[in-house]
């Protein structure tokens, strides 16, 4: 099993799409966590279809920045636990190795609210 986390700075910009395709083709991660997608859920759904993932959970952007997304394959048996505009938490049930929890976390993009991000953690 493998996973990739990437701050992609805009999920639907023309230059990111080839990068996504390259990443998925070469490393074939079971789970993909994206931050700064700068997109709404319809774009993430498009991306999920394009990359051939079974499930996705998008967190919409707020205004013009932020936005998270988690894409994964059914083989992981993922269950969503919690989410906010800063994080997505899922529980991964592995039949052999047991259950563990994965949190994709992304702080606030603007520096002034960083303290708030640490507080939240």
């Amino acid at each position: 099993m493998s996973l990739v986390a990437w701050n992609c700075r805009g999920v639907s910009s023309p230059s990111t799409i080839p990068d996504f395709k390259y990443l998925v083709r070469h490393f074939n991660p079971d789970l993909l966590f994206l931050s700064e997608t700068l997109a709404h859920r319809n774009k993430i759904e498009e991306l999920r279809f394009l990359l051939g993932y079974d499930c996705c959970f998008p967190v919409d952007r707020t205004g013009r920045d932020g936005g998270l997304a988690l894409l994964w394959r059914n083989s992981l048996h993922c269950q969503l636990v919690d989410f906010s505009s800063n994080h997505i938490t899922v529980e991964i049930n592995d039949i052999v190795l047991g259950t563990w929890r994965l949190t994709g976390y992304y702080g606030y993009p603007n520096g002034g609210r960083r303290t708030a991000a640490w507080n939240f953690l």
Partner: protein
Amino acid sequence: MAYQRFRQTVIDSGLSDVPIEGYPFTWFKSLGTPRAVEERLDRALANNKWFNIFPNATIETLAAPASDHYPIYVNVAPTPRPYVSKRHFRYENAWHLEPGFKDLVTNSWQEYSSHTIIPKLSSCAEDMSVWRKSHFHKLKTDIEDCPKQLQETQLGSSGEDQVRMFELRKRMQRLLSQDDAYWCQRAKTHWYKDGDRNTKFFPASATARKKVNRITFLEDDAGNKFTNEQDMQDMARQYFVNIFQQQNSDFSSVIDVINLSVSDNDSYMLTTPFTKVEFKGAIFSMHPDKCSGPDGYNPGFD
């Protein structure tokens, strides 16, 4: 200040970094300028329980030019990379048929004339490897293309075409001889003297030989079979370590029993230094297609 709080939070929740392999930074700014900054902003943190489940997990930074952050790739059970040995230099007997090769060797030989023989040979080998990449890497496609070009020029009848056709015929001849030499060197049929052109026979012998030489598995003293590349490497190493390691035993009782059988005259002959004539005789009697030594040169290199 803020960073300290992050650290405190991480410690409080019992998290630690997943070890990173390769390039350690995940973000950059103003690269190529004096103000360039590279940081490791993106991390993968996990608690001890998780490390117990996935003890070998590592992260790696990947290339993705669309963003100023690199993607981080968490591999929870990395497979050890197969050991790929570097391609060693091996002299090909087919090279000396290529025009310009002789000049290359002469030039590089003179260029390194101040060195002693061993560094000289290895520098020369480097030159040849570079030359091989640019001049001698597509023998097979050349052999296929040449007849096509030849047929095209045969259709034309101008003087220029005639000259070109003559050149192509020569080139084709040479390519076939090179192919011949290439396979002859691999077939190792040393009883075969300069004979006719490349036939099915050479590649067939070379393939058979390759099959015989291939090690598919090794068996150890206990009778266990190893097919894995890494295991086989370890086993072979261990075998020779065992053989060459000093063993505590006393040979003197055995050696005392053996009678001296080398006369003084013979002993004198054995201890005299080699003469140049002897040396030349030995070298020149070697078959040019024999295997190369550790430096990559076979007896065909002249």
